[in-house]
């Protein structure tokens, strides 16, 4: 059944001599899925493996029924790295124009300009279109990087800590954007190390030390704990005891 947009089977990844991902298996469907865990737990590695830029020791990763990183997927999966990956010496719109051309966004009927405008508006950088990215603040650079991932209307969005360094208003607006995209049928995988963002997700994957330690809706995972952070600590302590 092609319900699962992302299907991962027994994934093992070794980075820098340590096991970054240990036997990870999971399925992600449409909706907003949060990948939460402390720094260094393997969130970025997992996302890189999904996007197909990570060397994998063993295991299978399939997106939309195809092997991760395969050619037909490259314009269907949008990816944002933790550190903004945009050209600092180009303006926001010049960056977007370049990446839109790489993605093959249709130019006829002003389609390219429209796609760029929509992306800039979605991340609320309208007043900064012609600003050189190197002159923007950290949060603005991150948003410019996010705007690139929105180009080309991808079916799957893999966003690595997109809300880091953003104020509450912006965070609220971005999460609203993620849900809007999910409502349109896309699968949005968002990682964070801030536990209180957990409540905003349709589904949660908690990670620690290269393993998925919890998988469910926020309500399921919280159970009778105070909040997700508490639930997370309980799970971790439970593992330590067991």
């Amino acid at each position, binding site marked *: 059944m092609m319900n699962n947009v992302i299907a991962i089977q027994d994934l093992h990844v070794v980075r820098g001599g340590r096991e970054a991902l240990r036997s990870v298996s999971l399925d992600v469907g449409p909706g907003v899925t949060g990948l939460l865990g402390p720094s260094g737990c393997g969130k970025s590695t997992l996302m890189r493996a999904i996007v*197909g*830029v*990570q*060397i994998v020791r063993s295991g299978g990763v399939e997106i939309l029924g195809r092997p991760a990183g395969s050619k037909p997927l*490259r314009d269907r999966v949008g*990816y944002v790295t933790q550190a903004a990956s945009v050209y*600092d*010496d180009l303006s926001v719109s010049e960056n977007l124009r370049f*990446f839109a*051309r790489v993605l093959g966004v249709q130019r006829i009927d002003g389609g390219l300009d429209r796609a760029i405008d929509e992306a800039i508006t979605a991340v609320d950088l309208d007043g900064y279109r012609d600003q050189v990215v190197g002159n923007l603040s950290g949060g603005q650079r991150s948003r410019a990087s996010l705007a690139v991932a929105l180009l080309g209307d991808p079916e799957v969005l893999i966003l690595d800590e997109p809300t880091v360094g953003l104020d509450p208003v912006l965070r609220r607006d971005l999460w609203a954007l993620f849900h809007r995209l999910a409502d349109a049928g896309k699968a949005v995988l968002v990682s964070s190390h801030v536990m209180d963002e957990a409540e905003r997700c349709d589904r949660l994957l908690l990670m620690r030390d290269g393993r998925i330690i919890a998988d469910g809706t926020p309500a399921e995972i919280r159970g009778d704990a105070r909040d997700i952070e508490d639930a997370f600590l309980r799970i971790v302590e439970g593992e330590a005891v067991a």
Partner: protein
Amino acid sequence: MRTLAVAGRVLTQIRRDHRTLAMLLVVPGLLITLLWWMFQDLPGATFDRFGPGLLAIFPFMVMFLVTSVTTLRERSSGTLERLLSMPMGKLDFLLGYALAFGAIAAVQSAIAVGVSVGLLGLDVNGPVWLLGVVAIVDAVLGTALGLFVSAFAATEFQAVQFMPLVVVPQILLCGLFVARENLPGVLEVISAALPLSYAVDAMQELVGRADESAVWADVGVVVAFALAGLALGAATLRRRTA
């Protein structure tokens, strides 16, 4: 199409950086003028002896430097990884850079050759436009090698360290200071394996005997080295990294 997008973007980046633009376009002409001035009071046509070699060396050196730092920046900023996760082919990427720097090289060599022949009175027996061709091919060689070595640098600091390693030995052994046939046996053999030797050969040939077939043979060797450099560079562009 994507090749043009890359080329256009690189040109926009360079155009925005006025200092680099000045270094690329104007400095080689200035340095050749300085050299001419140095030899002004010496008897004999010393400028005619050294001038052609410099016309070969400067494009190579300048393009190598600019390319190695620029492509290193692509790697370290994450934009290269992002591009390779998109429908960007490695060849598109490389050819885009080669095209952009080739275009800059065309302007650069027009200025340098124009200054040398027109202003400073360099005596050329062969067709002047062929001087330009050799200079452009030389610049593309510098671009190809710069791209290749950027894979072995982690920081811009490390990238520029390849200059004394890759460029200076070639300047010393290419036949500018000591005619290649007068070099000690081992050094002569080494110089025959270095691409800059053939570029300098071509330039000196054009100024001297002007046997055009010998010039084209040398150009062919430089082109072959440039293509090999591009192929090696392509091998260092990895979609999947650790």
